[in-house]
Structure formats: structure tokens, C-alpha cells
């Protein structure tokens, strides 16, 4: 995925803060989408959204922490950066324990915030890319025959062809053919990448 698809979702009850944050993001070419309350955001939220969330921890009505809780129930993978005020540190620490990406204390420097947003977006992209690759690897794996799967398990465990042949009661030549098919179907250019795919699939 690219930067262009990423949107920073801003949830803050203060109109000036919301508007100025959008303006700040615009100055670095990041798209912002602002919501004035936790409820408004939760109603609009869609699993397909990409980017990160900038969430005011202290809001009337649904609090920032409550928004975080509900999003996690809905399996939202967007990183959350909390904006906290004076004396909110204990709350922010709890939010971090509950999986928040980061928090930033008001008043903050614009660069400090932008850096964290960039980090959050980068982290999100990495996890998304990894998820996509994992899905792809699983699809490739499912195209293997049962015998090829057996050979692959043995190969990634580091067994030599001769050992595999003995274990599976096959000729060494047959194992070699299976092995070549596994590498081809899994699109692994080396044993190392096959091991990596195997680990990823089982993660």
C-alpha cells in the first residue's frame, strides 16, 4: 500500500484543534479526516480504512479509552496515537498497555506529532504488507500436494534429501523432484526464503 491511501483519522471534541490538525497534516501532504466525538467516529468506522487514528483521550461522552476498547473489539488494526493533556499520564500508560501505538502530551511541537504519525503509518504499512504476504504464502501452500507438504516440512526442519527419502520411504530422486516443485510453487528462491515463508505461515 502507498501513502496516498493512508488517512489520519482525527477524533477530538474541540473544533479548533481538529481543524488545525487537518491543516497541519495538509502542510505535509497527508490527508486528514476529522470527527467531533467518539460516537461519530465509531458509527462511521469501517474495517477497510487504512492509516492511523489520532485520538483525544479526554472527551465528553465516549472517552478516548472507550473508543480504543470498542475498536479493538471490532478487530481494528489501525495504530492509535492518543493526545493527552496535563495529568492524563496514568490514563495514557493504561492505553499503551491496551495496545495504543503512542501518546503525545499537549502542548506538543508539530514535528514531534508528525514524526509519530509517520511512524504509525509506516508501522501500519509494514503490518499490512506482512499480512498480505502471509495470505499469499498460505494460498501458495494450499496448492501443494500432501506429499509436497510433507517434503516441505522436512526441508524447513533442515533435513537432508537422503534423510527425507528414508523417512518418507521414497527414492532420493523423487524427493529432489518434490523439493523442486515445492520451491517453484512456494516461489522461494532459496532455502532461507522457504524457511521464512514457513515461519510466516505459522505465525
Amino acid at each position, binding site marked *: 500500500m502507498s501513502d496516498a491511501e493512508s488517512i489520519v483519522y482525527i477524533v477530538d471534541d474541540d473544533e479548533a484543534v481538529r481543524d488545525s490538525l487537518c491543516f497541519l497534516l495538509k*502542510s505535509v501532504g497527508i490527508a486528514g479526516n476529522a470527527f467531533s466525538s467518539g460516537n461519530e467516529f465509531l458509527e462511521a468506522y469501517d474495517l477497510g480504512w487504512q492509516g492511523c487514528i489520532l485520538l483525544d483521550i479526554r472527551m465528553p461522552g465516549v472517552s478516548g479509552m472507550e473508543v480504543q476498547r470498542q475498536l479493538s473489539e471490532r478487530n481494528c488494526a489501525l495504530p492509535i496515537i492518543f493526545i493527552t493533556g496535563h495529568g492524563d499520564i496514568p490514563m495514557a500508560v493504561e492505553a499503551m498497555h491496551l495496545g495504543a501505538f503512542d501518546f503525545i502530551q499537549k502542548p506538543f511541537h508539530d*514535528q514531534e506529532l508528525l514524526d509519530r504519525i509517520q511512524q504509525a503509518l509506516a508501522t501500519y504499512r509494514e503490518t499490512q504488507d506482512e499480512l498480505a504476504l502471509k495470505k499469499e504464502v498460505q494460498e501458495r501452500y494450499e496448492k501443494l500436494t500432501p506429499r509436497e507438504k510433507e517434503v516441505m516440512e522436512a526441508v524447513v526442519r533442515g533435513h537432508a534429501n537422503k534423510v527425507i527419502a528414508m523417512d518418507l520411504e521414497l527414492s532420493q530422486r523423487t524427493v529432489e523432484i518434490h523439493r523442486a516443485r515445492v520451491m517453484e510453487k512456494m516461489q522461494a528462491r532459496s532455502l532461507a526464503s522457504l524457511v521464512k515463508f514457513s515461519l510466516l505461515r505459522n505465525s
Partner: protein
Amino acid sequence: MNAFIEAIIVISADGKIERFNTTAEKMFGYKAEDVMGKDINILMAGPDHYRHDNYVERYLETGKAKIIGIGREVQALRSDGSAFIAHLAVGEVGWEGRRRFVGMLRDLTDTKAAEERKLRQHQEMINASRLTTMGEMAAAMAHELNQPLAAISNYASASLRMMKSGDENLEDIETALQHIDAQAHRAGEIIRRLRDFVRPENISLEVINVAAVIDEISPLAELDARANNITLRISVADNLPEIVADQLQIQQIILNLLRNGVDAMKDADPENRKLRMKAYCSAPDEVRIDIIDRGQGVPEDIKENLFDPFFSTKSDGMGMGLAICQTIAKAHSGRLSFLNNPKIGTTFSISLPTKVD
């Protein structure tokens, strides 16, 4: 007498413990032999600690009982210094030709917990609507002030960034500047409100009775103390002269100082978790309220700055509480002062002039 579910304590007419059953031992954490002959006061917490003498005296003199045959809730004190609420019924007996009083106590801790939650919610509401302590108000102000400041900073830094990158849109920057202007005014408005709050002309003066003022806030203060395992003892001298003051603001000072006292003893040992408040006549024309904690005391090097605005020793403090307390005291032609106690802790005192007839 030892088989009773209620704690039974027999005292002599002058308040000395003569019998103490096993339930009482469990309830108070004392062995009977440890309390025999001791004054009943050692088992009483809060205002009851001091009132008890008066009750017995009054009864013996006038025959008017405040408690006999009626029963009421009292604050009792365990041997470890923790307080609990109990229902006390007292009967008078005469045997061996002497007058004695029999007290029967039932521990109301569990029953009280539910009631307390309700009371606390109620108090929180009061807190929010009018008795908000200075510190909380200042924190709320700071939060509010942070909003326009954050917005100003965002607009300004974004505009700078746009201008530096060379692809600025003048219209965008003009809008940002307008927003900056508006937000600066908004911040000014918040500060003006903060100043109004403590401005002398906004004090609504009335003739008030200090005892009544303290009575009104003592449930809230005791709740706060108890929540922090601190025993609060309040004593108010009889016949205090009236003062002319803004009741709400005086209550705010007292609550704020009590809160500070509680905070000062957050890490104190159990035997030192005692907060005292005394109201008395310190001069013919002056009423004084002392709040005495047993915390760490005020370090020498910060004594001078203690009342400065935004000076705080608490990690989450705004440093506004004492500053505003002092402003209020001065607006009442009064004084706020403090002195480290000889042994432990600090005494904060508010002195207020009495009503001039």
C-alpha cells in the same frame, strides 16, 4: 457476655473501660486487658473522639442524653489506627451502687460501603457543581487553555512549513492566520474567567458561622480521608464568633488544605496517617483554622515558593491550589500561613477577621 455478636463495652461514669467482650476484641483489635481502665476515647475516631467527653458530662449534669436508648452511628477507631463506622446503642446501668454505661456496637462497614458509594457519587456531583477544589479547577482551566494553544501552534507551524516549501497557497495561510487570531482571543477569554473567579469584587460576603461551614464540608472531607486510610479529626471551639466571608470560597480553601494534607501523607506510615483540623479564636477579633498533617513537612528550600502560582511538588499538580487559597484569604483581609511542626508534618493556618459589630 462474651457470646454476643455485638461488641459490648462497659464504661464507668467517667469514661473508663471496665468490660470488653471478645467481639469487641475482634472488632477493635485490642486485647481486653490492654484497654481496661483506659479512656473510651481511644476507641473513637473523627469528631466523636472529642465530643464524647461533652456527651457524658452533659448527661450527668442535665440528665439529657444524646444517645441513650436511641442509638446512632459513630466512627470507631481500631488499634491499628484505621476508622470504621459502627452502630452504637448505649444503656445505663447501676450496679454495685455505681452508675455505668453499657455500649453495644455493631460493625457497619459492609452496610456502609454501599451507602458510601452513593454518598460519594452525590459528593462528586457537589464537587463538580460548586465545591470543586482549587487544584481541580486549575487543572480544568489548563486543559481548556491547552486547546486554543494547541490549535494556534498547529496553524502557525503548518503555515511556516507551507511557506518554506514554496508551494504555499495564500488563501490557506490567510485562513490559518484568522484562526490563530480567534484562538488567541479564546485563550485570553479563559484567562479572564480564571481571574474573575478570585477577584475581590466577585466575593459575595455574608455573615457566616465557621462551625456550620465546617460541618457542611466535613462529610466530604472525611470521605476523602478515609478513602486514603487517613483518620481526620475535626475540633471546633464552642461559641466561635461569626465572620464576614464568602462561604463557598472559605469552604474551598478548607477543602483544598485538607486535600493537601491527605496528599502529604500518601506515603506515611499507618501510625502517622492522622489529619487534624482545629477551628478556634486566635485573637479577640480573629478566627483561625489550623490544618495539621503528619506528612514530610515543607522542605526548607521551597518554603519561599510554596504560594507561587504554578509551583508544585506533586507530579500531577498544577501549582495553583495554594496560590488561589492565598488570594482568597487576602481578599477576605485574612492570612494564609504555614509552619512545620516541631516533630512531624506541617500546619497550614487560615486566619480570618471576625465580624465587626
